[in-house]
Every structure is written in structure tokens, then in C-alpha cells.
């Protein structure tokens, strides 16, 4: 990259700090959640895992609520992007974004033009939005007042917490792998928030074309 490289601000500080807290709370939650599912240890250790699960769960909730309030416009934009579909999405999924070809066959295939999020990211976004909300709500119910809920509802909370927990853990593995693979994006999210214009034009041409504006100074 040349020194005259131009940059687009992709992740402002609010997004980055939200994401940091999300990482710091969700990864312990996922690990302790899996342990709590299999119950392999003795009383004290299981209790310790449950306490970590509870504390990180509270952190994640506060993080999500704070971002929902502070970054409400960005949440709405995220919802809009995640739920806008076009014929390109079908094409994208039919070749799975070209990733299997890239990793397995070492072959580059033409990928339909994408917005800020590609179709896979949109699917992930929808799962995180819905699943995350359900996990937070059911988690508080199961922690705080399972005895007040009607039994069938408490059991439903348990099932939902389990299903979406596993779903998000599986998505998280893919997300971590691809996130590190796209190293420019990784740096943007964890360091400075910017990605190079060329990279953006290749990965998200529609975004650059329709949504990105030059800053007037």
C-alpha cells in the first residue's frame, strides 16, 4: 500500500468499543456455557463457571443496552442492511461467496457485487440480532426468576438459550476465522477503524458506490 493510500472510516470508536466488550464477554460466555451444558466438574468448579457466566452475561447485557441507546442510528442502519436482500444474495450463496473455491481449489471466481455486508455476513447479522436478543432475555429469565415463570415457559427459555447458544458459538468460529483472514478488516475493528479504499472497492463495491462519501474539510 502506498503512502498516498486513501482510507474509509468503517468502524468508528463506538462500534470498536462495543465490539471489544462483546469479545471480552461473549468468548467467556461461550466457554462457560459449553462447560455448564456438559457439567463435567465438581460443585465448586461448576458454581465458579456459573458465576463467570452470570457476570459476563451482565457485562454483555449492559454493553448491548448501552450500544442500543448510544448507537441507535447505527443499530437501525445495521438492521436495514442485514434485512435488505436482492438477487445477488442468491448468486452469492450458490457459490458461497467464492470462499470454498479460494481455500480448497486455490481458484478465484467472480463474486456478485456486495454492499457493506456480504450475504453471509447478513445471515450472521440476522442471527446475532435475533439470537443475541433471545439469549440475553432468556438468560436473565433463567438466572433471575425461573420460579416465577410458568414451567413450560421456563423450559422454553432453557431450550431457546441452548439452541441459540450453540448456533452463535458455531457462527462465532466461522466469524473468528474469516475475521482474522480478512486482516485489513481485523485491524480496522481492533485498532484504528479504517480500511483502504481499494480493499473496500473489491469487497464491498456497492457500499463504496452508494453509501460512502468524501469528507468535506
Amino acid at each position: 500500500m502506498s503512502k498516498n493510500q486513501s482510507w474509509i472510516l468503517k468502524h468508528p470508536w463506538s462500534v470498536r468499543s462495543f465490539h471489544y466488550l462483546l469479545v471480552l464477554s461473549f468468548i467467556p460466555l461461550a466457554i462457560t456455557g459449553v462447560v455448564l451444558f456438559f457439567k463435567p466438574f465438581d460443585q465448586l468448579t461448576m458454581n465458579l463457571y456459573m458465576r463467570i457466566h452470570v457476570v459476563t452475561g451482565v457485562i454483555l447485557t449492559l454493553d448491548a443496552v448501552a450500544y442500543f441507546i448510544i448507537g441507535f442510528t447505527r443499530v437501525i442502519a445495521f438492521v436495514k442492511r442485514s434485512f435488505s436482500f436482492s438477487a445477488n444474495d442468491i448468486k452469492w450463496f450458490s457459490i458461497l461467496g467464492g470462499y470454498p473455491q479460494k481455500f480448497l481449489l486455490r481458484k478465484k471466481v467472480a463474486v456478485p457485487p456486495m454492499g457493506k455486508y456480504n450475504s453471509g455476513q447478513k445471515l450472521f447479522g440476522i442471527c446475532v440480532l435475533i439470537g443475541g436478543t433471545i439469549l440475553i432475555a432468556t438468560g436473565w429469565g433463567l438466572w433471575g426468576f425461573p420460579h416465577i415463570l410458568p414451567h413450560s415457559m421456563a423450559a422454553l427459555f432453557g431450550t431457546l438459550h441452548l439452541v441459540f447458544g450453540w448456533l452463535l458459538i458455531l457462527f462465532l468460529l466461522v466469524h473468528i476465522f474469516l475475521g482474522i483472514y480478512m486482516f485489513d478488516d481485523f485491524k480496522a475493528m481492533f485498532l484504528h477503524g479504517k480500511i483502504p479504499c481499494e480493499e473496500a472497492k473489491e469487497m464491498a463495491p456497492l457500499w463504496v458506490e452508494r453509501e460512502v462519501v468524501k469528507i468535506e474539510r
Partner: protein
Amino acid sequence: MNAEARTYQKGEIPGIIAINADVCKGCDSCKRYCPTGAITGMFGAIHSIDVEKCINCGQCLINCPFGSIYETVDTVDTVIVKLQDKNVTVVGIPAPAVRVAIGEEFGMADGSLVTKEMYGAMKKAGFEILDNNFAADLTIMEEGTEFIVRARHALFGEEAHGHKVGPLPQFTSCCPAWVRYVETRYPALIPNLSSAKSPQQMAGPLAKTYGALEVWKKPPETIYTVGIMPCTAKKFEASRPEFTSAYHFLKKEGKAGSDTPYPDVDTVLTTRDIARLFKKMKIDFTKVGETDGGPLAEYTGAGTIFGNTGGVMEAAVRTAYKVLTGNELQPLEFKKVRGMKGVKSASVTLMDTKYGKEVTVNLAVVNGIHGNIEPVLESIMAGTSPYHFIEVMNCPGGCVNGGGQPIKSDGSSWLRVALPLFGWK
């Protein structure tokens, strides 16, 4: 089972309620229902039940969201074998609360009153019927009279002939979980328990003596009594070794017909068990039609409300009022002891015609031991309690919400607003 159990007599069943470790999620719901803190296991870890502390009430069982708590005692098949044995007369003793709940197991609306259908299904299965409501009326006669004796002893110094007079306040003794609670935690208050047995334990000897000899004309040793109860603690109560009074009574008259003592109540089925028995015997409860119960199924409105919180108190007030004043209580509904409050209190001022004096009796009804009983008991221990007669039922709402009742998936027994919230330890 646990041979080293310390709070059980020889012959009693320890550990009627148990937790299935494979299903337990460590959510702590059960702990919040347990009246004695018998559930061990930290938040997030697998829970288990301390049989020494457990009073077998089954509230955790009907309130576990994940269905991981179960009963270890199941005698449905034994009862079916007895029903098919022509030499055995099986006497079913259905409790008040069963008749408003068993319909739920067969798809009827909550609280459907199905006494006659229940009699019909029981007759079809081969039971003779001694309605526990009949025994409840008998309980009121005995326990109410006992209260009058105790009250007159305390107020007027009247001496009773032939037996000891216990102190006030008098506690009801109908609830076996409550009796075990006193026995394990407040032994100093044992004399305050009414000496009257619970209706089930009155019905057992009644069936084997009066019923066998005068009603069914069968040898007492061939009578097999089955309590049909909304309650898991009744299984424990029936196994108490001292409850063989019918045998000893008959032995003295040379009519026992056996040299080994037999229990007053041979076995207990919960409401869930009896529904399962009907299903196993292919009896369609909804199509069985209405039947009368026979001579020992005669009961009054006072007997049937035993299943509700405050019901024993209300029934006792109706009878004691009549005995003391000579007049019926007007109106018969004694509404102050009804409702879902944790501790309900009332007082009745009446004229004791025998002494010609006006007396005020303070009554209390404890609706659910958990969270309600301790202040009441502590004030009695401290000598500051104003009450003379206290009804205690372990389960919130009374026997209708007992641990043996059909499990309502769209409900929960929690009566209070919220607290305690949030598990930690």
C-alpha cells in the same frame, strides 16, 4: 435405601423425592420452593436432596421447569394386582383435593369438580370407596372437640378425664409434611400438635374396623387400603410404624385375623398415580359416567374444603361455634381465612354456653410453610403469640396444589411477587 438415615424411624420410607442428575440444570428453582433448605448443590451444579431435611412435600417436584425431580415410590402396579385379586377388598380413600384436579389429567378444564366420575372410575377399577371427606368430617369432630377441651382447660381450668390436655396454640396435624417439619425442626412444639390423626390415617383404621366389620362384612385382614392423595408426603405418613392401630384394636377383640401387624393405610397413590392407574387399566375417565360412592362416601361441605388453604379452620369454626354456642354460625362462609395470603388471621368472639362467658378465639392460617411459618413459630417459642388455633398447610394454596397433583405446565406455585431473585451460591 438409605439405612443410615437419622431422622427416620425403622420402616419409614426415606427419600420419596429425588433429583435426576442427568436432567438437572442447576437453575435453583427448586431451592426457592423448598421449605426446609433440603436441596443441596450450588448454583450451576447438579442439585440433590438431603433426605434428613426433606419433608417430602413435593413442591420442588411440581415446580421444576425441566421435570428433573421424580418420586422414588410407585405402587401403581401393586395396586392393580390387588384389584385383580378376588380375595382382597381394595378400599380407595380419595382426598378432597383429588376431585378438583384429576380431571386435568384427562383433558378437562382446571378445577373441574368430578366427584361422581371419580367414584365411577374407581368402582369400575374395583375399588370400594371410603371418601376421605367422610374422614375429614370425623377429623373435625375429633380435632374440634380436642380444641374445645384445650381451650376450656387453658381459660377455665377445666380438667379432662382420661387423657392429657395439650397446650395452646393447637396446631392442625392434617399435613404430614408439616408434622415432619415440627418433628425435625421444632420438637419443642410437638405437644402443640393436635393429637388427632390426619384424615387419611383416620380413614385407614376406620376401613379396617368399622368398614370391614359393619359395612362391607369382610375379614379385616383382607382389606387393602389405598390412600388417593394430592400429596407425596402422605406416602411417608402411611409408612410410619406406629400407624397400625386397627391391627392392635382388632387383636384385643380377637378379630385381627393375622399375627403380623398390618398398616392402617397399606399404600398411597398420588393424583398423578391414580390417573396413570386408570389409563393402565384402560378406564376412560371422561366416559365412565356418574356413580354414587356408597355408605362411607357421605360427606359435607365442611369436609370437602379441607383441600383448600383455610379449609380446615373454616370447617372447625363451623362445628366449634355450634358446639359452644348451640347455634349455627351465620353466615357459614368464614371468609377471613380464605384467599392466598401467606398468613391469615381472624378472631371469633362467642359465648361459651357451658360457662356462660364470652370468649375471643384468635385463629391463624399459614398458607405454605416456606417463608411464612418461621415468624409464627418463633413468636410461639418466645411466648408472645396471640393465637389459640393455627392451621398449617405446607403447600401454597393448600392440598389442591399438593406435590402429588397433576403438574400444570402453564403455571407455577409461586404466590409472592418476586423475591428472592438471582441465583449465586
